[in-house]
C-alpha cells in the first residue's frame, strides 16, 4: 500500500468530481432537501430559542440570559403568566427563579428549578435553553451548580414539530447518499470504462484504488453531514463528538456502497440494488418520523447507530456517556463491513496485485 499513490488517486477523484453528475448530486441534494424542509415547516428563518423568566428575587442570572447570544429572553411577572405564554408557544420555555436564588447556589445549596417547555418547540431549541441555563448558572456560581432542572412540558405534548421528525432523515440522506453513491458509482464507472485495467497495469494496486474511492466517500459523507448540522444549527454544544459520529457513519455508508459495487455487475444493477435496499438504510428515520410506531424496530437497522447518537447529542443535549454504547455498536458494524468487503474483494479479484 503506497499512500502517495492513494493521494494521487484521491486528488484525481476530487478533481474529476465537478465534472460528474453523481458528485454534484450528492453535494446538492441533501442541502436542497434540508432547505425545503426548513422552508416548508417554517424554521429556516425562525428566531433563536426564546426563554421566559419569572424572577422572584433579584437574580444576576436574568442579566446573564439577556446578554447571552444563544437565547432571546422575556421577563414575566408571575408563574401563571409564564405558563400561559409557554403553553401558547409565545416562548419555547420558561424558568422561575426563586427568591435569593443567587445566594443559594453560591452557598452550594441544592435547588430544584422547573423549566416549562412548550410541547411543540423544536428539539434543538429545548436543548439550547437547557444547556444555556446550566452554563450561565455555572458562570454565576463559579462552580458546578447544585441545581436540578426539572422539565415540565406544557401545551400539545404529542405534537413533535415536523422539522424535528424529518431531521434524522435529512442527516441520513446526507451521509448515506455520499457514502454509498460516490464510491460505488465511481468503482463501477472505472470497471465499465476499463480505466481500472490501466491503473492496475501501473504499480498501483486494486487495494489502493478502492482505498482512494473509500476515502472520497468518507470525506464527502462527513462534510455533507456536518453541513446539514450547520444548516440546522445543531452542531453547537459537542462538535467534536458529532464529527466523530459523522466520521464513523460515513465509514459505514461507504462500506455498504463499496460492498454493493464489488458484488453487482454494472451501474444499472447498482442503482437497482440501492433503490431496492436503500429503504432499509433510511428505515430508522421513519421511526423518528412516526413516534407512535414501536421504536425498538428502528434498532434493527444498522444506520440507527449513526442517527441515534447524532440526535442524542444535537437535540437532546447528550454527551459521551449517553452515546457510548451506540458508538461501540457502530464501530463493531464498521469492522464487520470492512472485513466483508475485503473478503468479497479477495474472492472476486481478477488482478494479480
Amino acid at each position, binding site marked *: 500500500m503506497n499512500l502517495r499513490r492513494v493521494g494521487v488517486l484521491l486528488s484525481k477523484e476530487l478533481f*474529476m468530481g465537478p465534472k460528474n453528475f453523481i458528485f454534484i448530486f450528492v453535494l446538492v441534494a441533501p442541502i436542497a432537501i434540508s432547505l425545503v424542509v426548513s422552508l416548508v415547516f417554517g424554521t429556516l428563518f425562525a428566531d433563536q430559542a426564546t426563554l421566559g423568566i419569572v424572577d422572584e428575587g433579584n437574580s444576576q442570572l436574568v442579566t446573564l440570559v439577556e446578554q447571552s447570544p444563544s437565547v432571546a429572553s422575556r421577563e414575566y411577572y408571575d408563574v401563571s403568566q409564564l405558563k400561559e405564554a409557554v403553553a401558547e408557544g409565545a416562548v419555547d420555555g420558561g424558568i422561575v427563579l426563586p427568591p435569593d436564588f443567587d445566594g443559594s447556589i453560591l452557598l452550594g445549596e441544592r435547588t430544584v428549578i422547573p423549566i416549562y417547555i412548550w410541547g411543540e418547540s423544536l428539539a434543538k431549541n429545548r436543548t439550547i435553553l437547557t444547556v444555556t441555563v446550566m452554563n450561565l448558572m455555572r458562570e454565576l456560581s463559579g462552580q458546578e451548580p447544585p441545581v436540578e432542572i426539572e422539565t415540565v412540558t406544557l401545551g400539545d405534548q404529542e405534537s413533535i414539530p415536523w422539522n424535528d421528525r424529518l431531521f434524522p432523515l435529512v442527516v441520513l440522506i446526507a451521509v448515506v447518499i455520499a457514502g454509498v453513491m460516490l464510491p460505488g458509482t465511481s468503482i463501477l464507472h472505472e470497471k465499465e*470504462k*476499463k480505466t481500472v485495467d*490501466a*491503473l492496475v*497495469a*501501473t*504499480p498501483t494496486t486494486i487495494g489502493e484504488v478502492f482505498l482512494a474511492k473509500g476515502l472520497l466517500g468518507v470525506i464527502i459523507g462527513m462534510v455533507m453531514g456536518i453541513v446539514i448540522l450547520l444548516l440546522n444549527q445543531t452542531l453547537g454544544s459537542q462538535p467534536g463528538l458529532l464529527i466523530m459520529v459523522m466520521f464513523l457513519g460515513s465509514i459505514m455508508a461507504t462500506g455498504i456502497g463499496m460492498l454493493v459495487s464489488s458484488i453487482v455487475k454494472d451501474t444499472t444493477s447498482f442503482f437497482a440494488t440501492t433503490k431496492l435496499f436503500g429503504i432499509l438504510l433510511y428505515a430508522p428515520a421513519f421511526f423518528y418520523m412516526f413516534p407512535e410506531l414501536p421504536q425498538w424496530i428502528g434498532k434493527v437497522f444498522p444506520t440507527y447507530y449513526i442517527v441515534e447518537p447524532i440526535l442524542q447529542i444535537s437535540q437532546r443535549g447528550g454527551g459521551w456517556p449517553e452515546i457510548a454504547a451506540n458508538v461501540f455498536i457502530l464501530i463493531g458494524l464498521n469492522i464487520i463491513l470492512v472485513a466483508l468487503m475485503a473478503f468479497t474483494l479477495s474472492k472476486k479479484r481478477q488482478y494479480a496485485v
Partner: protein
Amino acid sequence: MGNYSIVAEDLTYWYGDLVAVDHISFHVADGEILGFLGPNGAGKSTAWKMLTGQLKPKGGRATVLGRDIAEDSQKVQGEIGVCFEYTNLYEQMSASENLRLFARLFGVRRFDDEALLRRVGLEGWGKHRVEEFSKGMKQRLMVARSLVNQPKILFLDEPTSGLDPVSAEAIRTVILEERERGATIFLTTHDMMEADKISDRVAFIDQGKIVALDTPHNLKQTYGKRALKAEVAADGGLENIEIPLDMDETPDAVRELFSQKKVITIHSEEATLEDIFIRITGRGLQA
C-alpha cells in the same frame, strides 16, 4: 542477442474448461520487437495480460526484466509500459491531465506532456478533453500514456487495430523510435502486414499454443512458396499464369512463357505471413 527481457516457460492459463494459453515457452531479447500473431481467441491477450501482471499464471512462469511477474508484479509494472487494445482513457479529462495522472502514479517527477503529445502527433491537443478525440487520436494518446515512464519494455495489444492509415503509421513510427531508444517491444496483433513490417521475430499462436516462432524472413523461407505471376494475351482476352520459382523445371517454364506467349505483365510473388499461418494452422488470422 545477449540478455532476455522476457522469458516465458510453460506458461499456462485457463478459464474454466477452456485452456486459453497452453504451456507456451519463448523469450524476447533486450531491444527486440516480437510480434505475437494469432486470430481472435487464440490466447494472445491472455498471454499479454499474464506478462503485464494483470493475470496470475495458472501454470508455468514468466520472468520479465529478470523478475518473476507473479511474485514481483508491482516492481515490474513500474518499468514497463502497457497499451491496451480497447480505449480506457479518462474521457472527461484532457489529454495532458491523463498523461500527468499516470506519470504521478509511476512516480515520475520531471515530465513533459507536450513533448510526448508531439511525438504521437497530438501537438496542441493537450488541453482538449479526450471525449472530443477521434478513435485514432485516442489510440495515439494511449500509446503516449504507455510511454510516460520511459519503459524498458513496451507491451502493445493491437495498437493499430481499426485505425486510419495516418494514425497507424504514427504509432508504428513511435514503436520503431522506442526500439531505437533501447526498449523491448512485445506487440500483440492479428495484422500480419504490420507484424511483417516492424517485428524482428514473430510468434504464431493458435488455440493457446505457439505453432511457429522465427524472423518473418525465415518463416517465409521455411513455409512460403515463391512464384512468378504473369498476365498473357489469349483469345482476345487475358490469361493468368503462375510459375513456381523453386523447382527444377522453372527455367524451362520461364523460357517457354516468353517464347510462346505475349506477356502483358509479370511480377514475382512472395508468401505473406497470413499465407504461412494458414499453411501451418489450416485457418486464417481473421478467424
